[in-house]
């Protein structure tokens, strides 16, 4: 006999499973894409995805790491939270690299992991892992759902925490009994987080202090980090810089927050930054950091970092202020709100034409440089052609290493949120899956994944997704048959002992792509590069392009580890 529960019980709502409730809360959160991979402990959730008519799409990766990097790419280019589902145990532990990456680069992610049923938690059950313990140091916050009635509130809190203040990843660990059990769909999801009240608006007195410092500065400099992108402050940054003719340098992750081709832009600063940017930091008398965290790859030796400057630091996370660099004018605020405050202040500037002239001379006299080759491709020249052919309008994703630095140096970003790279954690295998997420988030844009031959091999199984969905991601392998940055450091600091850094046994990337049903091309002659790029960018589908580049090219300029920001080597040919 069939019993319809809704007729038996006199209740307001209908009976649903915890997993159905989860789907409902995802709909409430306006989720449009979910990246995931099924498994035992999330079977009730995947069953609910199957049974419910969901307005969002589930994207099946081929490894959980692919799911989470895709969610990161999606979050970076859309500004919306990336949502991930993985099963318990190995499903969850396969996410760890991506969660850490998102934590380091402040990306808003909400990650749902399955967990074994509550009655067997702590018994070393099949596919049990202590996800709460493992993810505590790498999340902004994490939850384990102990009562089904808490689930809607927890999900709402998770989205709130992930996307507000300084964004970050939030894990929600859901035991199988919670997702499988039946409950009423009449739920409460109001929440109150008294310990979490991010400061959005700047203290007006601090803005006045900063404006006063600017009015006294003879050699001012703006340093814009990713905080300006999260705050959607690119427009305000440009207005502010142009209003007072302030030079701007970017961190690696801040690229695009200020137009790279603007006259006021000095380009990227730091270990592989431009001469003009690093010398400006060394010589400035007022450094206004907006949404950057004074990372060691930016600062070099702290004793030589902006030694003569008053430091002003605008950051939404108070713990970043004064962490690495002593700060004279702290401003805890959202970057956009702080810039709006500064734009309202009427600042009488000193004449700083001499300073601006000097910076322009540095820009002109010490441009980024490279050497062409008669045999294989010059990697930097290749990136320049990628920039030219895509008219500088593509979304570009990378892994970590030489190709990443060349992309940062030679692909000039004029618009925000087109640059997707693993900065803090420096994750190999990030770029390609991140491009999948970026393409799903921005279906009408050209998405180019610039990767190395080493990194691509860490997550290339996701070629299945781009084939399955015909996602027109263009994968550009800067193939030097080496772990290029490792090789470079071994050349420079380990007397050319190339320990395990040369990849002479690479696969045939063209055949590999073709085996996935993806178009593959190989180019090793300069003369073919532009035609090939035009061709593949126009092609309506994914492409793996194996560009064979000179093997022993190094990234320059460079600040060697332990050296000061003014002690660059390789500033000229």
């Amino acid at each position, binding site marked *: 006999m069939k019993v319809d529960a809704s007729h038996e019980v006199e209740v307001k709502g209908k009976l649903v499973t915890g997993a159905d409730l989860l789907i409902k809360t995802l709909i409430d959160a306006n989720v449009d894409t979910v990246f995931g991979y099924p498994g035992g402990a999330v079977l009730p959730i995947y069953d609910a995805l199957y049974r419910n008519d969901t307005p969002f799409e589930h994207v099946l990766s081929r490894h959980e790491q692919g799911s989470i990097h895709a969610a990161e790419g999606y979050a970076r280019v859309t500004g919306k939270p990336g949502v991930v589902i993985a099963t318990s145990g190995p499903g969850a532990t396969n996410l760890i690299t991506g969660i850490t990456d998102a934590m380091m680069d402040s990306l808003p992610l909400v990650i749902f992991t399955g967990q074994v049923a509550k009655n067997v938690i702590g018994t070393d059950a099949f596919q049990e892992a202590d996800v*709460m313990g493992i993810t505590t*140091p790498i999340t902004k*916050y994490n939850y384990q759902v*102990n009562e089904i009635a808490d689930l809607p509130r927890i999900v709402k809190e998770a989205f709130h925490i992930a996307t507000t203040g300084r964004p970050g990843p939030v894990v929600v660990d859901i035991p199988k009994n919670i997702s499988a059990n039946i409950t009423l769909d009449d739920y409460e999801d109001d929440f109150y987080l*008294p*310990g979490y009240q991010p400061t959005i608006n700047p203290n007006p007195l601090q803005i006045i202090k900063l404006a006063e410092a600017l009015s006294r500065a003879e050699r001012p400099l703006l340093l814009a980090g990713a905080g300006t992108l999260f705050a959607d402050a690119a427009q305000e940054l440009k207005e502010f810089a142009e209003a007072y003719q302030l030079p701007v340098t970017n961190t690696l992750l801040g690229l695009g927050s200020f137009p790279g081709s603007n006259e006021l832009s000095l380009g990227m600063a730091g270990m592989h930054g431009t001469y003009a940017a690093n010398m400006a930091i060394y010589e400035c008398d007022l450094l206004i950091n907006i949404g950057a965290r004074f990372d060691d790859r930016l600062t070099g030796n702290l004793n030589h970092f902006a030694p003569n400057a008053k430091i002003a630091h605008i950051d939404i*996370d108070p*713990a970043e202020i*004064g962490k690495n660099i002593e700060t004279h004018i702290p401003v805890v605020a959202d970057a956009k709100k702080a810039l709006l405050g500064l734009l309202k202040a009427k600042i009488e500037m000193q004449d700083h034409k001499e300073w601006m002239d000097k910076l322009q001379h540095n820009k002109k006299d010490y441009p980024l440089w490279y050497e062409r080759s008669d045999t294989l491709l010059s990697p930097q020249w290749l990136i320049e052609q990628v920039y030219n052919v895509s008219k500088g309008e593509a979304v570009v994703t990378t892994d970590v290493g030489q190709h990443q630095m060349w992309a940062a140096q030679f692909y000039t970003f004029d618009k925000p949120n087109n640059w997707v790279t693993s900065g803090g954690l420096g994750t190999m295998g990030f770029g390609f899956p991140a491009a999948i997420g970026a393409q799903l988030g921005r279906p009408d844009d050209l998405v180019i994944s610039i990767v190395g031959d080493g990194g691509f091999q860490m997550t290339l199984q996701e070629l299945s997704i781009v084939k399955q969905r015909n996602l027109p991601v263009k994968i550009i392998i800067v193939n030097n048959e080496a772990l290029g940055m490792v090789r470079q450091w071994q050349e420079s600091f380990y007397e050319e002992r190339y320990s395990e850094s040369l990849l002479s046994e690479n696969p045939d990337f063209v055949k590999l792509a073709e085996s996935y049903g993806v178009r593959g091309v190989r180019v090793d002659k300069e003369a073919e590069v532009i035609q090939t790029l035009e061709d593949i960018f126009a092609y309506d589908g994914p492409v793996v392009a194996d560009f064979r580049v000179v093997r022993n090219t190094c990234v320059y300029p460079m600040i060697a580890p332990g050296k000061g920001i003014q002690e660059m080597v390789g500033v000229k040919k």
Partner: protein
Amino acid sequence: MRRIIIATVQDRGGVLNRITGMLHKRQFNIESISVGASEVEGVSKMTFVVEISDRQKLEQLTKQLNKQIDVLKVSDITDKAMVARELALIKVVATGHTRSEIQGIIAPFRSSVIDVSKDSMTIQVTGRPDKVDALISLLRPYGIKELTKTGVTAFLRGQQPDQVTEINSMTI
């Protein structure tokens, strides 16, 4: 310098793990932590005694604690008028003829004997950490078989004087 920092936190699962993990990751040197209920249901109070090298590190510590979502309030009470106490249980070797001698030593500390056996006595002492340490060093010659301390718990005095002496940072 040694500092006493108190934090009020939401009593949620994993909060202690999250805080101690952060302290470990950021290389703060914790001498003791004590955790317990507060006057508000669902809110716990933590007392940290930390050894910190400079002001900048201290500022980082309070900021990193404050950043935790479950942390409601953080205060460094070292330089304020406060009461700080810890409890120690000391099992000391005691035979017939040393028993009364030990009784005489512990009396001025207002500590008490809470267990006696054939060859040992267990002493309970409560007080400022320097007082507890003083008693421990007096008892050490008799042979300490077992020792356990709760760590310091502290809060502000009901009334704060205008001028605060520096005694606290010396003695706690």
